[in-house]
């Protein structure tokens, strides 16, 4: 009981952080899944899109927008910069797919994978040239503010407002997304293309365009993840490493599954924080990957996937 009393607040505190990171992984994982569903490839530069989103937001748009709107406009400048970032990411996604996917669409997926790797190298190093080598700090809506609350008299838990914001923002985003996919013509045609490209084009859908839009949307998700992370992390070229965790999340959840991506993200986030605390902080990434490999061997379809292994 004593042990519990001592550990519980700490576990809760870490879980909140883990869930917030999980949401971020989930958002990026969703991007993997949409592209996977639509064209059956994995974009290995997806993680670097997070970095590009973070830089666009923190280094390019925030300073400009803040100077437009003047002092004391933290709220509106956040939303404006977020919107501009999303627009920027649409361009990034569209242009990238036009260059590294579209010309190769008939090639072996392996070739496409390599071209997305090259894109990843390009983006990492382009960031150095475009935004410099100094990591960028930005404050978002809440900066470094945190609050404490008492956990049933067991102890106090300290939480960053930004963590809560990430959780709420992700929840709202998912609700909006689900409405978009079921209620709008564009959303439905994106689903149709993901399910059957030939049938979709026989319906008169411009499939190449819808695929480009899917890439753009996946990029927006990555960019938003970058914006949400920017205040708690620093924006630097190493931010792209988040892509691997997100890839893991999408596998754990069941590749190609929307709910799976989120649940997988939350699971990976929690495993990461808890294993850092209770197993080994330097091997935490290794532990995440061990879990991944175990999943692939024991339940390759993931938590929510159908029992089919994606063929190449």
């Amino acid at each position, binding site marked *: 009981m004593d042990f519990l009393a001592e550990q519980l607040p700490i576990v809760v505190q870490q879980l909140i952080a883990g869930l917030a990171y999980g949401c971020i992984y989930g958002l990026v994982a969703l991007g993997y899944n949409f592209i996977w569903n639509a064209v059956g490839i994995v974009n290995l530069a997806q993680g670097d899109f997070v970095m590009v989103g973070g830089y666009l937001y923190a280094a390019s748009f925030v300073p400009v927008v803040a100077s437009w709107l003047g002092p004391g406009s933290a709220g509106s400048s956040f939303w404006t910069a977020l919107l501009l970032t999303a627009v920027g990411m649409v361009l990034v996604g569209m242009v990238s797919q036009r260059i590294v996917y579209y010309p190769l669409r008939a090639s072996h997926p392996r070739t496409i994978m390599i071209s997305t790797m*090259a894109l990843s190298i390009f983006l990492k190093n382009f960031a150095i040239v475009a935004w410099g080598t100094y990591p960028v700090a930005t404050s978002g809506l809440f900066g470094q503010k945190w609050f404490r609350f008492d956990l049933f008299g067991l102890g106090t838990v300290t939480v960053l407002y930004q963590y809560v914001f990430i959780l709420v923002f992700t929840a709202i985003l998912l609700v909006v997304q689900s409405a978009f996919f079921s209620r709008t013509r564009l959303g439905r045609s994106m689903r149709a293309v993901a399910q059957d490209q030939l049938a979709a084009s026989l319906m008169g859908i411009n499939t190449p365009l819808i695929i480009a839009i899917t890439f753009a949307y996946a990029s927006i998700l990555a960019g938003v993840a970058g914006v949400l992370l920017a205040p708690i992390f620093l924006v630097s070229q190493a931010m792209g490493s988040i892509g691997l965790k997100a890839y893991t999340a999408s596998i754990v959840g069941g590749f190609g599954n929307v709910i799976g991506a989120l649940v997988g993200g939350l699971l990976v986030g929690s495993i990461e924080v808890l294993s850092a605390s209770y197993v080994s902080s330097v091997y935490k990434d*290794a532990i995440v990957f061990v879990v991944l*490999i175990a999943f692939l061997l024991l339940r390759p379809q993931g938590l929510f996937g159908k029992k089919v292994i994606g*063929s190449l």
Partner: protein
Amino acid sequence: MGIRSLSMKDKTLIGIILVLAALYPLITNSYMKFVLMTGIVNALLVVGLHFIFGLTGQLHMAMAAFWGVGSYAFALAVTRLSWPYWLGVFAAIVAVGLLGLLLGFPTLRLKGFYLAITTIGFGEIVRLILLNWAPVTGGVFGVAGLPRPTIGPLQFGKNQPFYYLLLAILALLTLAARMIEHSKYGAAFRAVHDDELAAEAVGLDPTRLKILAFVLCGVYAGIGGAMYASLMQYISPEVYTLERSQMLAMMLVIGGMGSLPGAIMGSVLLTFLPEVLRFLQQWYLAVYGAIVIVIIVYRPTGLWGIWVRATEWIATLLKRRGDTRGAA
């Protein structure tokens, strides 16, 4: 057997090895010579990767881990255990071969991008172990003072003899790879690549074949890892990253998937490319990435494809000139 009876690939292979042999004394500065040596070591690894990535079509992204374990097995055997040089190389081969077996077994059920992420995860695990298991690996401080080889009275301590030794090893291993490729195993690997179910239907065992490919790759990576350690004479864990695995895969793809001459061309070229681009200062790796994208997108058949077209073009050109001469 005359040179005419050899296939285009074989002729090119011989040509490449000869060019590489002639190149070394032609290069006047020892920096470029050293880059060339690095290129040969990369080629050893890429030829190994060819078995999995090229022949069997499996997305193996843990090549840096294979290479790292090879380097460390060799380095620890010759320093900590004071084993003789070639026994150390043998230890590296066995270690990475076993690693290939270890990775091959559980991941056989996985295909495509599932295999890719598994191997990426595996590579990261190995990297973290090399970095943090300090009592055994020396941790961040790496292993220093690694020897260059001797064979009987022959000394390979200097760069030039070591270069020709590396080249000889590359030639031998490429020859072996070529023989495997043309044997029934090569055909079987290709069958697994094209259609696993069909391969199974004709009585091949894709599982065993894939394990075999992983083990073969491990053997090559073991030699490559040991040679790298011997070349640098110092190894440290920050080298064996996912980025390196990606670079090696790119070398293979840029070279032209599924062709040995392409694998060597790709390795040497992509080793030189960033060095040649250094004058671009901090732009150079961004430009490197862009060049790789351009090559892949506009020539998915890689350097091998370009070479084939170029030789065809030259051949028709020569023939046409011959024809007009004949007409005149």
